[in-house]
């Protein structure tokens, strides 16, 4: 009994570096406040208050991040909350990326001028096609819960990329996933597609989480700890069972690759991208990608760096499959959202190349390259989906490609911006997409992955075809007589698209600042 008391007394509260995790606390705290506001405020005030709260939160989080990043902090980063969260240079970069991309997405989410009342339905639980559903379609109310949901997802993503042990990572994975499942089902138009997307994403996501958790269990069995550094130490030279290590690694990675929409774990991507409300698709495409690859980078470089020769071949193959699937299936798509979904699968392959670019000496030239790519890709994607949300007919968004024919004649500016974004996705020089590809590929060649780079280049050329096809349609085809109109975007969407397009251009011309910043430090191990 005395012993127990003595033990209980020695347990101390863990040290918390509040300055380091301030951005995280701000986002998650605001998410909780936002839920309360949702419960307490009268209906007509909610939208404005929630929007202001969300934007202020994001700006505040970025501010506190800058404050911390420019202050005196340990070079290699700090590990806080008993080592559950590592705030190192990559964490800070990825946090900043998530926050600014989140800001862009929130602007798209907040827009109510393109679709009267916003892209979100008022009551998602009403069955599509019923009398109530038709009644609700004529009203302009919307579910303002999207704001707290977005904040929670963002908080989960930020935790995910900074998680220094697998259990924290799993919890972060759930925190980021659950709001996304819900958000997918909230589209105002095409309710059935939207609900299908939500269910599909939820079921497959639940499977992926189970895989992840099973992997965590096996790795715990192997290393006796869920800490990434402990796994690295255990794998460094013991006579423990390799089966546990690699089975655990395999299951863990499947969970991660699923979230990152890397082929062949991409099956959910086209359906979910198509069915989800377009602002949410933009949010998922940009931010989830960042979070998932942030996690992959940390797991691979911190926990599994010294076993890279065993697993590199597998991920090599996965990257090839992903690029091939994305590039070739993208060719056959007739829906612009599905096309961008397959393009994201191809991009996931390119990102995976950067993630596995580790040199035998233990350097990871691919980390900063991949992070740059994520930032560049995120901005381009948000702007692209912003444009997709503008091209509409009486039935909502006109996403079928044939409806985009001759768009340049009616809306030259929208067509020109979209062309620029497509060229960026294709990786044409003078856009951020090219610099991203360039840094990833040069890191991969550094790490001896030249054949993979050649495959990637061929895949880029194939993928370029479907981007070009859209440009051909917009510029060189005659417009359909009953074609869609381009809605004049409200301020929010305009800002989001401008932000995305300008960043895409600036990072294509002067990438030095961001490249330097991405390359400032390595993961805390």
């Amino acid at each position, binding site marked *: 009994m005395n012993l127990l008391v003595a033990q209980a007394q020695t347990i101390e509260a863990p040290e918390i570096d509040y300055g380091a995790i301030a951005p995280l606390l701000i986002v998650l705290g605001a998410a909780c406040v936002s839920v309360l506001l949702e419960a307490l405020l009268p209906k007509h005030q909610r939208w404005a208050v929630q929007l202001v709260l969300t934007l202020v939160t994001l700006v505040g989080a970025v501010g506190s991040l800058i404050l911390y990043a420019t202050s005196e902090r340990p070079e290699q980063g700090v590990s806080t909350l008993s080592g559950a969260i590592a705030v190192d240079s990559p964490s800070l970069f990825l946090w900043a990326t998530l926050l600014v991309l989140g800001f862009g997405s929130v602007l798209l989410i907040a827009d109510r001028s393109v679709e009267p009342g916003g892209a979100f339905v008022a009551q998602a639980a009403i069955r599509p096609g019923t009398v109530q559903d038709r009644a609700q379609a004529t009203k302009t109310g919307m579910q303002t819960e999207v704001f707290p949901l977005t904040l929670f997802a963002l908080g989960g993503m930020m935790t995910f990329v900074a998680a220094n042990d697998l259990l924290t990572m799993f919890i972060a994975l759930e925190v980021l996933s659950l709001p996304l499942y819900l958000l997918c089902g909230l589209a105002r138009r095409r309710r059935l597609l939207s609900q299908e997307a939500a269910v599909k994403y939820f079921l497959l996501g639940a499977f992926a989480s189970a895989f992840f958790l099973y992997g965590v269990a096996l790795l715990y069995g192997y290393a006796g700890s869920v800490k990434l550094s402990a796994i690295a130490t255990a794998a460094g030279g013991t006579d423990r069972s390799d089966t546990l290590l690699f089975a655990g690694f395999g299951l863990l990675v499947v969970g991660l690759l699923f979230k990152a929409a890397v082929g062949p774990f991409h099956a959910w991507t086209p359906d979910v991208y198509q069915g989800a409300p377009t602002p949410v698709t933009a949010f998922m495409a940009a931010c989830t990608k960042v979070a998932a690859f942030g996690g992959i980078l940390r797991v691979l470089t911190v926990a599994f760096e010294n076993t890279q020769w065993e697993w590199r071949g597998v991920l090599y193959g996965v990257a090839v499959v992903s690029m091939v699937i994305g590039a070739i299936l993208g060719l056959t798509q007739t829906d612009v959202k599905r096309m961008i979904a397959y393009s994201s699968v191809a991009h996931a392959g390119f990102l995976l190349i950067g993630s596995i670019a580790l040199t035998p000496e233990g350097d990871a030239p691919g980390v900063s390259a991949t992070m740059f790519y994520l930032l560049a890709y995120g901005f381009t994607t948000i702007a692209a989906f912003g444009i997709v949300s503008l091209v509409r007919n009486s039935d909502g968004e006109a996403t079928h490609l044939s409806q985009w024919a001759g768009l340049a*004649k009616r809306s030259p500016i929208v067509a020109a911006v979209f062309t620029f974004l497509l060229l960026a996705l294709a990786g044409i020089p003078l856009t951020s997409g090219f610099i991203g590809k*360039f840094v990833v590929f040069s890191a991969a060649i550094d790490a001896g992955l*030249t054949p993979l780079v050649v495959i990637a*280049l*061929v895949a*880029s*050329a194939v993928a370029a075809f479907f981007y*070009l096809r859209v440009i051909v349609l917009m*510029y060189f085809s005659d417009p359909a007589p009953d074609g869609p109109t381009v809605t004049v975007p409200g301020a929010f969407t305009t800002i989001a698209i401008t932000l995305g397009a300008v960043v895409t251009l600036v990072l294509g011309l002067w990438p030095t600042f961001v*490249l330097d910043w991405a390359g400032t430090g390595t993961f805390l191990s």
Partner: protein
Amino acid sequence: MTWVLIALLVVPLVGALVVAFLRKDDKKAKLVALAFSLVELVLGVLLWIAYDPDGERIQLATGVDWIPAFGVRLSFGIDGIALVMIAVIALLIPLVIGAGWTEKLPAGRSQGGYLSLILVQEAVTVAVFAATDVFLFYVLFEVMLIPMYFLIGGYGGARRQYAAVKFFLYSFLGGLIMLASAIGAYAMASDELGKGTFDWATLVTVVRDADSTTQTWLFLGFFLAFAIKAPLVPFHTWLPDAAAEAPIGVTVIVVGILDKVGTFGMLRYLLPMFPEASKNLAPFVLVLAVAGVLYGSLLATGQRDMKRFLAYVSIAHFGFIALGIFSFTSQAGVGSVSYMLNHSISTGMLILVVGMVIARGGSSLISDYGGMSKVAPLLAGMLLISGLTTLSLPGTNSFVSEFLVLIGSFPTQPVFTIIATVGMVLAALYVLWLYQRVMTGPLRGDALIGAAAGPGAVGDPEKKTTIGDLDKREIAILAPLVVIVLALGFYPQPVLDVITPTVGATLTEVGVTDPVTVQEGK
């Protein structure tokens, strides 16, 4: 005098911007675009004066840091080969603008947009030749595709979408593979020097000493890009489509200027950077080159469409150029570079003349024409002159080049040279046969007489046609070309003087010595 080079890059861009704002007023747009292109021509002449043939390898060099993390610089400079190519661009663009003066654009398109793209194309192409940073070269090599893609796709003929996408994808793929090689060279440089760089001169010193396996792989990456661009058989299939669908002025730019980036790249990048691999793989390239000469000539003979005919003629000529480059003698090298210039001038002129024929008949099928010299004797004369310089008649500029290529290649590659000589005979066949079908005999053909005066029509067909001879504008466009064709045919020395030191330096970089003594000029 560095400012001349910078001005050459900036002036067309400014012009493009100004013209882009004149989309409402076609006439003003044309005048402004022409004015900017003439300024560019003057700058081109100044550049020629500023260049010292016996000076350094790269002259008028200038640059600023772009992406220091990768040692990428925005650096420009010219050697003799680049100078010649920039000069010919500056010469051809005003003519192209003049030639398109009265051309009808597709509905809904404005002259402002068209000319703006042409000027952007001019700036980017000049920059490609002037770039002395491999990364910058790659960037411009790909960016060069974008205005051309819109020029073909937006202003071309019936199958323009197909042609534009095909053109883009072919070149883009080649460029990407080249990028892999460029990164490989960069990685070698950063291993060797401790700090990565894309500077051309530095990369040459690093990469040239690499082992031959590495060199071979890097060589193949660059070669594929240049072989598609040039184009060598079997990477050529995009050119006939692009040339046939593009408006005539754009065809001049594609065939006369853009393609030269391929052969220029072989001389500037392949030979100095990968001397070992260049020598080892030369037989392979020569097979493609000679195949191109024969295949291009034969297909040109068989074409029914005049614009496709022009494309195949060019493919044959690029075979000659590649033959000269990969024979590794200074005579053949000088011949190839002067061929690059002369091909731009003579083929450019031929395309412009054919464009004038097509503008009159409204069809590009050869069978729609016949006996045109009856109604347009001057035009017939111009077609003959441009045809004769295309088939390298002595006294025209192309003869000097083709002769130098063949005489220079013979000592090292006798078999390939003999086979390629057949191409000269075929050239006479396809050019004269085209002339005969279009110009000589009684006036005939749907395009000239029109459907109204069909087979059963009575009376003199010459009175039934409204086809006129060359007008003042067209004479003004062709006259300078005729002068240059003849002047360079009889006195090529000024051009050869500029080229010879650079070609000599390139061959020194490859490490070959001439089997025969170099003669000055011819």
